[in-house]
């Protein structure tokens, strides 16, 4: 009972105490869930890690779990290629979309366009995947076979994360205080000067958070990617080469995996989780440096 008196200076009422403990409880549950997921992945990976050193997962000849080869590195590279490519395309496009909505489009068009982007965010990933498999992949195949490739994955992921980036950037830019904008206009700044010199710097924390969120989705996306990237375990030499991502690997093989194979898939999940955590760490660091 004395604990909260140290943490909160003024004498809190009953409602404050309740809220404090409720929020502590909620935070505790959220932290515990992440911790339990990590523990679970570690426990499920343990049977294979016990007799195969971790280094084998990065130095084996390839990924042929049926023949005792467990190299995850090509899939790690595939995951990063697809996600990074999608971010490179979606970030400028998404930010440009939000600038168009806020500063360039006439009100009617801006409203319609915003609804369209929101709709894009609501389409289930399997629909994107299906469209990719039946339309996009044959199209790329005309240019450079086999069609199922890093490029197809990048394009599908771009479509999927574009709305996330556009909508968070839109929210961040809308939240820029009105007096900044009015001040800039009073100084006689051009529209482009206002965007570049005032709006974007003021909104950059929010925009960066949106990009981090989108990156998380791009790395973890499974079904759509599984349907269009070809799933061949290799280092891609060109955008037209097929690759397999870590998430697709788990979805593709888990239903049929037994014993070491199954545990090795949990190692993939563990690596994927570490990758997302690293990204989160980078995003958090970015946010702090922006605030400071």
């Amino acid at each position, binding site marked *: 009972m004395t604990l909260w008196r140290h943490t909160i200076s003024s004498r809190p009422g009953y409602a404050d105490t309740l809220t404090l403990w409720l929020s502590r409880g909620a935070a505790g549950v959220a932290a515990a869930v992440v911790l339990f997921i990590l523990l679970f992945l570690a426990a499920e990976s343990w049977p294979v890690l016990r007799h195969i050193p971790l280094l084998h997962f990065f130095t084996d000849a390839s990924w042929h779990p049926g023949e005792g080869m467990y190299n995850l590195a090509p899939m790690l590279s595939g995951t990063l290629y697809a996600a990074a490519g999608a971010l490179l395309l979606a970030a400028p496009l998404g930010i440009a979309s939000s600038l168009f909505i806020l500063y360039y489009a006439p009100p009617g068009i801006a409203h319609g366009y915003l609804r369209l982007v929101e709709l894009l965010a609501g389409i289930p990933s399997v629909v994107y995947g299906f469209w990719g498999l039946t339309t996009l992949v044959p199209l790329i195949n005309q240019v450079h076979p086999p069609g*199922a490739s890093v490029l197809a994955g990048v394009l599908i992921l771009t479509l999927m994360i574009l709305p996330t980036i556009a909508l968070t950037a839109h929210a961040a830019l809308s939240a820029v205080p009105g007096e900044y904008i009015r001040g800039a206009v009073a100084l006689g700044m051009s529209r482009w000067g206002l965007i570049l010199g005032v709006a974007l710097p003021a909104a950059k924390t929010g925009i960066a958070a949106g990009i981090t969120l989108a990156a998380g989705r791009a790395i973890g996306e499974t079904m759509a990617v599984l349907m269009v990237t070809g799933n061949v375990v290799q280092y891609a030499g060109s955008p037209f080469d097929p690759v397999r991502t870590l998430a697709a690997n788990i*979805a*593709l093989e888990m239903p049929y995996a037994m014993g070491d194979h199954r545990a090795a898939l949990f190692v993939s999940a563990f690596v994927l989780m570490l990758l997302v955590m690293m990204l989160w760490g980078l995003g958090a660091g970015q946010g702090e440096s922006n605030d400071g």
Partner: protein
Amino acid sequence: MRTLPSTQSLLFAAALLLGSGWGQPGHAASQKLVLTGASTIAPLVSEIARRFESRYPGTRIDVQSGGSSRGINDVRNGTAGIGMVSRSLKPEENDLRAHTIAWDGVGVILHASNPVAALSQQQIRDIYTGGIDNWKTVGGKDAPITVVNKADGRSTLELFLNYFKLKNSDIKPHVIIGENSQGIKTVTGNQNAIGYVSIGAAEYEARQGAAIKLLPLDGIAATTMSVRDGTFPLSRPLNLVTRGAPEGLAREFIEFARSVPVHDLVEAHYFVPAGVR
């Protein structure tokens, strides 16, 4: 069909099985049987199970997919009463007994517009290992071949590798797929692709207008007919496996699954009933 792939859920199912009075004579009101295994067989068996349940009220048949090897494991450790295995039993699995309920064939498929009408065993082996990489070499047009392979652990892959005496690491694939339908979509969308899928599924999709064709193997047409009369070489039995001779509910269910009243279900899934062969 419910798909609960994790061990936890299987243990839970086993706990239900133990707690449900299974094996107590005269307590037929809550008889329960768990089947786990091959995803090829699970949809068919779920339908057979539904018909079985309506014919014998008070019985409960739980069907879960998760691969042939899982079916074998679950029967061995008693988690499941019956395992579903979409291949013949291996010599080291002679502690189990197989009851064939149907046959399935695996056929090589090409895009319908591909002029190649047949490939020899050696040509297919060369295409899959990268020795032949252009359709020109085997009498087609001048275009690079897209090799479609199955993901590790699938029984179709195992059957294909066994028949062509290949190792999975020898294969140089361009696309790796999971389900049959994904394979058919991939070949439909790529005029220069070659893949292999369950003949029943391919025949059905071709009848629905998908732009694919099934290649004959060793001169024998890949049709459900040739699988039925036993002449098609690349075929597999769909088995229900038990530990020792089946008893009680398991025996009744296996007899029912092999009987004439379920042949319409087997055929609806593009398999060939075992009795007919």
